[in-house]
């Protein structure tokens, strides 16, 4: 299959997928971590995270530009040597599955605890995984269209609904960030909160699918998306802080869920809007999971290409099953949260620094090899796409 025959996505679709690929994990506890450590100065932690994520995103795009018509998992073994390349591939597959499982556990526990107390957690896990696998089934173009169609209403609905909670702000002085900043607690909170931005490495798999000539635009849109997410999170942070105050935010299990659960509209046909959260978070997490599964399936196909080619559908099913099985191992959300904090955040951050720097370093030393890989990728000789 030549690269010209690949399913293509537009710059906007790429940016939507990249954005949807990292907002699913950190929304549950936001902004508890930064506020617990840094108090009223927590907002600086979010902005710091945003800046770090922006820098790492730029670095990741530079990695993708090394061989723009091939996925990272596709060209890594050819550029970095097979052991290192396959290590990165296997790591990516495992990391996507771990992210998917963790996000599944976190939302299942919220839904099970608040809305569906009699429903077994495995049923919610399975339902979400199956929905996400179904979304990813049609491949990148179908998934991109689905996400594009759902994210705009999602953003409008989120903004409107959180604005309703803003009417309960009783301490407007809390909206102004504190001038008292303790650096170490701020960095600690910021580190834990980085969970919100984990997952945009999906861009290394999505990059070759962008239409020719749209790649610069796609990168720009993705960065605008990141800035938009930081702005939206800032708005949510301000509302939550202004309503509850820093002491209570530190004790809330799901601060955003609590913000929705204080909304009471008399006269409206739905008087309590807490249930709206089930819709919003399900869309966000289903989008996150479907991208994880698509990426994992794709990277698995690349990994297995030389040993035993795996069709995309089978790879997707396998990854969905792995994610579901892994999710079942978590007894509760606290364990998932600890897993995120101790493993996913440090390992993800490390990968986002090490992988691009390694690739860019090796690429600068092996220029001829890079040119060769680009030519091969353009001809589609090394590439098999779902």
């Amino acid at each position, binding site marked *: 299959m030549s690269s010209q025959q690949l399913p293509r996505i537009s710059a906007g679709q790429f940016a939507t997928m990249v954005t949807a690929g990292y907002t699913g994990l950190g929304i549950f506890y936001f902004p508890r971590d930064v506020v617990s450590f840094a108090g009223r100065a927590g907002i600086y932690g979010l902005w710091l995270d945003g800046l770090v994520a922006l820098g790492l995103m730029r670095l990741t795009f530079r990695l993708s530009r090394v061989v723009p018509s091939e996925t990272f998992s596709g060209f890594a073994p050819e550029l970095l040597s097979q052991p290192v390349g396959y290590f990165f591939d296997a790591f990516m597959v495992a990391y996507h599955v771990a992210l998917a499982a963790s996000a599944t556990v976190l939302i299942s526990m919220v839904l099970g605890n608040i809305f569906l107390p009699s429903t077994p957690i495995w049923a919610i896990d399975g*339902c979400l995984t199956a*929905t996400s*696998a*179904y979304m990813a089934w049609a491949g990148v173009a179908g998934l991109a269209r689905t996400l594009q169609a759902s994210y705009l209403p999602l953003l409008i609905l989120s903004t409107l609904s959180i604005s309703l909670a803003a009417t309960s702000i009783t301490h407007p002085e809390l909206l102004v960030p504190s001038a008292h900043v303790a650096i170490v607690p701020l960095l600690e909170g910021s580190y834990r909160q980085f969970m919100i931005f984990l997952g945009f490495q999906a861009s290394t798999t999505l990059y070759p699918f962008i239409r020719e000539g749209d790649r610069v635009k796609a990168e720009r849109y993705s960065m605008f998306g990141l800035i938009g997410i930081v702005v939206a999170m800032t708005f949510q942070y301000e509302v939550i802080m202004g309503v509850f105050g820093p002491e209570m935010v530190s004790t809330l299990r799901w601060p955003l869920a609590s913000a929705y659960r204080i909304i*009471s509209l008399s006269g409206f046909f739905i008087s309590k809007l807490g249930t709206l959260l089930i819709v919003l978070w399900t869309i966000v997490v289903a989008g996150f999971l479907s991208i994880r599964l698509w990426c994992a399936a794709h990277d698995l196909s690349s990994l297995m290409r030389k040993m035993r080619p795996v069709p995309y559908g089978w790879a997707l099913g396998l990854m969905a099953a792995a994610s579901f099985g892994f999710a079942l191992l978590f007894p509760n959300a606290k364990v998932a949260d600890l897993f995120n904090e101790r493993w996913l955040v440090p390992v993800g951050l490390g990968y986002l620094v090490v992988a691009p720097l390694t690739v860019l370093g090796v690429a600068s030393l092996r220029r001829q090899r890079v040119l060769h890989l680009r030519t091969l990728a353009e001809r589609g000789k090394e590439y098999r796409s779902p």
Partner: protein
Amino acid sequence: MTKRLTRWLAAFLTLATLTLTLAGCWDDIPLDRRTLVLGMGFYPGPTPDMVTVYFSFPTPTGLTSSNGAGSGGGGGGSSPQFSSVSGTGYSLSQAFSQAQAKVGRDLYLGHTVLLVFSTKLPAQQFKLLDNAIDRIGTLDKTPFVAATSAPWDTVVSVKMVQEEFPALYYEELFSCPRCTQFALGTRLWQTSTRLGKSGVDLVLPQLSPTPQGPKVDQVAVYRDYQYVGTWDHRQTTDYALAAGKSRKSSLTFPDHWHATFDAVADKMQLSASARDHQVYAVVTLHVTQTLVTLDTTKENAQQLSVLSRASSQQIADRVLKILELSQKQNVDVLGVGRQLSWTNPTEFYRFKNWHEEYPHVHWTVHCIVRINKMGDTK
């Protein structure tokens, strides 16, 4: 053909799985098998470490009655409009299980609108209940919270002036702050922002059922989870002025042309600072009030100036008095400590125990009065 069949099979299995799991059969309990609890009452149990929880709900007759309400017929009559069950245990869940065993339907807490805590509830029990209530998944954060010294039966069977379930009556009362003399309504999430937090104490409206009907004109004050006392109507008026919760109070000035003001409403701004281990709190009140009677037929600028000064002085004095009472009882009703922790955390966290500092807070009360003249409204 085989490939096509496999695809169809995969699609069918996916759809079947989604259909079965998305249907939410596990949590699907029809309405006629549910008992919709509207109010919950928390009282001390037979031993100090036990709690008795009452669950009040409309009966099928009450739910299907034409006006959707009953008139205090909880216990008696051939077809009571509402009923209550109770459970006792060492924890909320134990009490709930015992109450659930007494009714043949699912006790559903998702529609609860009122939580009432007995003033006799020990602090330890109150703390455990606060924690347990926060973990009830179906209960959101919007029910109103109140205190009472009356037994639960009296609270829910009080004769209503309006035809209504008691819990719904109180919900309506608290939902409309401008309809009542004081905006005392406190929702569960607002209670949680005060309970167990350093630098602020809890104030709850106190429900007082009387033979004439329900009365809510007093507040119960707490130190942490410990009930400290109830402030009478006069003190509650002063507290409402101090906290910016006054909506329809009145002021009279017999020495100044027998002037009377009504619709006294205010907003409060609090600031706190600390210097040399001394905390200074500044309460700024913006009051609007309407001049309704005066023994001269028409007010003049000089009279308005005098009345403005007099009412400002009176309000400031009353506010200062109630704040000093709060210091005597050691209940930080305005949240001076919390304010200090927000604006000057370093100073606040130097105090090991805020309740040792609060009685020594130095107050300044500013009162800015805006008078709606008789001519403005007539």
